[in-house]
């Protein structure tokens, strides 16, 4: 091997003055960084992924982790990441795997958009004193109502409504499958969304029996592998989501390695234990938009037209036209997953280079659907890189009805965004199936944290709306007049249909 060792990604140091040799770091590190030798703790920094589990459980703050302790000769083009990817592929000849979301330093559009507030000419509204409505309905809306009004004042509704999902806050938890994350992680999310009055996605991993008590708050996914799909599964969900693509890896399928397919996962996914679960790139019964329409209608027939059917696509260049096609397919909502969307495992080249940001995708989809007068046919759910309540407010102002959060929900359970999900060794018990690691995540405690996060964002969203003089989320949706761009280029401003600050 002519390449030899590459510089450390992280250097782990233990301060011997502080360390009391309790061994918690040894117990907690699932990557094998620490070992106890006699009266000292030895460190193998090369194994460290910076998941911070050791730090979090060290009672004496004795551990310190430094990133990139050794410099390469700096170069703007030949970055460290580029060079290391080449070393990696020179050694393996394979596709490089990665986890979490896009790791390239693209500008974040959300951070170049600012929100509005009222001053003098109109009063801001205090959410502590006045009602503030965040309730959202997801699904088809009639384009107009037909009412029969009799002279005595009775009004009869002649229009029948399609089934809609009612959420008390426009924040839902996105699809992370059992397999990609642990059952305890799913349970934590399920308990949280049930208490908050919102929904979560099952991902393409089936619905484990332990989640049945929360099924009224679950959106069951039908993806290209059709894992875990049967009539029982479809009927349990509050809604059904067809997954066409994912923001972290548009255009390709998924691969759950056989090591993660333990007996429980195997039962839930309805596949043999230890076998790789491969979701093909396309659905093999969907090669065109009319095929999608048939699947949407097929799923609706199977569930007697009682459940909304969502279609999830990755945000790509042509999202707007694709969404317009979906809106004509009997689907009730289109989920758009931006290129910052997370993943348990994706080829690095896809995660970092394919797809477009959610901000631009939502703006163009909303505009296209309005232009074609079919915006009422589908709700728009935005996902992929929603980090805080301000992002929620901004993406709704750009035209979304609601958001899915993924990574943020995991972070609320302890995830440190180390990006090593694909190895199945998650020390926090989230992205792993190893029983001893899974047991580290207590669903009762973790669910409170997820619930707190959603509640905290909901409160902030209510405050932002109140400050903008808006007491109903409908009036924020698509209200791009309440956004201004700060240092975005003119063409992007046209796509987003926002003015510059000061204008």
């Amino acid at each position, binding site marked *: 091997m002519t390449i030899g060792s590459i510089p450390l990604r992280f250097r782990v140091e233990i301060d011997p003055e502080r360390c009391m040799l309790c061994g918690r770091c040894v117990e907690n590190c699932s990557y094998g960084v620490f070992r106890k030798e006699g009266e000292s703790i030895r460190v193998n920094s090369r194994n460290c992924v910076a998941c911070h589990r050791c730090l979090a459980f060290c009672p004496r703050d004795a551990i310190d982790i430094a990133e990139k302790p050794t410099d390469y000769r700096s170069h703007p083009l030949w970055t460290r990441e580029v060079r290391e990817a080449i070393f990696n592929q020179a050694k393996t000849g394979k596709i490089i795997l990665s986890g979490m979301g896009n790791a390239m330093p693209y500008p974040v559009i959300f951070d170049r958009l600012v929100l509005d507030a*009222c001053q003098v*000419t*109109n*009063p801001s*509204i205090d959410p502590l004193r*006045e*009602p503030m*409505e965040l*309730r959202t*309905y997801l699904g088809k*809306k*009639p*384009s*107009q*109502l*037909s*009412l029969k*009004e009799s002279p005595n004042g009775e*009004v*009869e*509704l002649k*229009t029948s*409504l399609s089934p*809609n999902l009612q959420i008390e806050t426009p924040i839902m938890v996105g699809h992370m499958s059992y397999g990609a994350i642990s059952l305890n992680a799913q349970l934590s999310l399920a308990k949280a969304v049930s208490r908050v009055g919102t929904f979560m996605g099952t991902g393409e991993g089936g619905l484990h029996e332990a989640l049945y008590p929360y099924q009224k708050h679950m959106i069951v996914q039908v993806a290209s592998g059709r894992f875990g799909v049967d009539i029982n599964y479809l009927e349990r969900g509050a809604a059904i989501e067809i997954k066409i693509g994912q923001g972290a890896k548009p255009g390709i399928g998924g691969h759950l390695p056989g090591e993660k397919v333990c007996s429980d996962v195997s039962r839930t996914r309805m596949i043999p234990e230890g076998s790789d679960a491969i979701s093909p790139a396309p659905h093999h019964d969907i090669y065109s938009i009319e095929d999608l329409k048939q699947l949407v209608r097929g799923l609706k027939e199977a569930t007697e037209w009682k459940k909304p059917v969502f279609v999830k696509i990755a945000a790509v260049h042509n999202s707007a036209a694709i969404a317009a096609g979906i809106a004509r397919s009997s689907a009730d909502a289109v989920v758009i997953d931006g290129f910052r969307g997370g993943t348990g495992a994706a080829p690095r080249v896809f995660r970092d280079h394919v797809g477009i940001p959610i901000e631009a995708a939502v703006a163009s989809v909303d505009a296209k659907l*309005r*232009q074609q*007068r079919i*915006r*009422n046919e589908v709700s728009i759910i935005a996902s992929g890189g929603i980090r805080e309540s301000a992002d929620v407010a901004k993406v709704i*102002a750009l035209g979304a009805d609601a958001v899915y959060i993924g990574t943020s929900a995991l972070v609320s359970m302890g995830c440190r965004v180390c990006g090593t999900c694909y190895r199945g060794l998650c020390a926090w018990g989230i992205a792993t199936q190893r029983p001893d690691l899974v047991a580290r995540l207590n669903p009762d405690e973790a669910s409170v944290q997820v619930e707190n996060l959603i509640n905290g964002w909901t409160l902030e969203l209510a405050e932002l709306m109140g400050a*903008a*003089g*808006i*007491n*109903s989320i*409908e*009036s*924020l*949706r*698509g*209200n*791009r*007049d*309440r956004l201004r761009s700060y240092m975005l280029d003119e063409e992007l401003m046209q796509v987003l249909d926002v003015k510059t600050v000061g204008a």
Partner: protein
Amino acid sequence: MCGIIGVIDRRRQCMDGSKIKEALSMMNERGSGEGAGYVAYGIYPEYKDYFALHVFFDNIRENKGILDEELDKWGTIVHDEQIKTYEQPNIRKVHTPWRYFFRPDRSLMPKSKTPDEDIVTHLVMKVNTAKNGTLIFSSGKNLGVFKAAGWPDEVADFYRIQDYKGYLWLAHNRYPTNTPGWWGGAHPFNLLNWSVVHNGEITSYGTNRRYIESFGYQCTMFTDTEVVAYLFDLLVRKHGLSEKMAVRALAPPFWEEIDVMPEKQRELNRAIRLAYGSALMNGPFAICVANDHSLVGFTDRIKLRPLVSGELGDRLFISSEEAAIRRLEPDVQDIRMPKAGDPVIGKVYA
């Protein structure tokens, strides 16, 4: 701020504009002398079957020929003339007001159920979007808007609105923030038979505008008020809702109220909010909307702007202030302050 007032006589008995001018001037505290306007219904009985277009020309020589040509393309100009004005010391006549009586050629819009209205709407949107020195600011039948930059009495005297007799009047005393001095920015705003006067600011304007524009309306006046006229036109004329139900859509009850309604009511109100969520108007406002047979007053859902109503005989009065109503009709009875979102509706008997 801004002050608004409206009155309807349910028997279509006409009132001249002198009292409404005095009533509007009572609310000068709410204005700034940079905009005022009036609309009166029933003023053109001899031309009542034609659309009365009120137009501001920046330059008669350059602009009028173009409009004449456009109108000829879509129908017949039955009569046109300059709107008489009378010089006022504080009003600089930056536009020439003109009126046309126009009959659209309905054969040009064969697929429409309301071809006349659709042609006129199309013309108004087209002319106003082009922004080439011509603004159609009034386009209904047997009615007319009179507005300019100035105090209410100056604008009234400029047009001598005491010479016009109508059974329904709206008037507006403006304190501008968006477009001071621009005549087009003064209220009332009008489209076809819909006229609107508005006190407040619509914080949901962006949402409402994008909604209404997807139905082919174009917002051209740089202000949030015009969207109200278009929303009423859409909900009442095109979707067939009553004025009451239209107001329900624009200022609906809160979910916490809807959730405890009897089932039928709950379903109805839920359906209204689902279908017309993007039409919901947020922010502080008090609004009077009129068409040829009704006057509707309503406020935002938490009543951040004042609205008072009163009755006497066949007449219903709606205003920002009781004082203004009392100036218009000293013997007014039944003064009420409607609840947030509850419409006050007056309709002609026949």
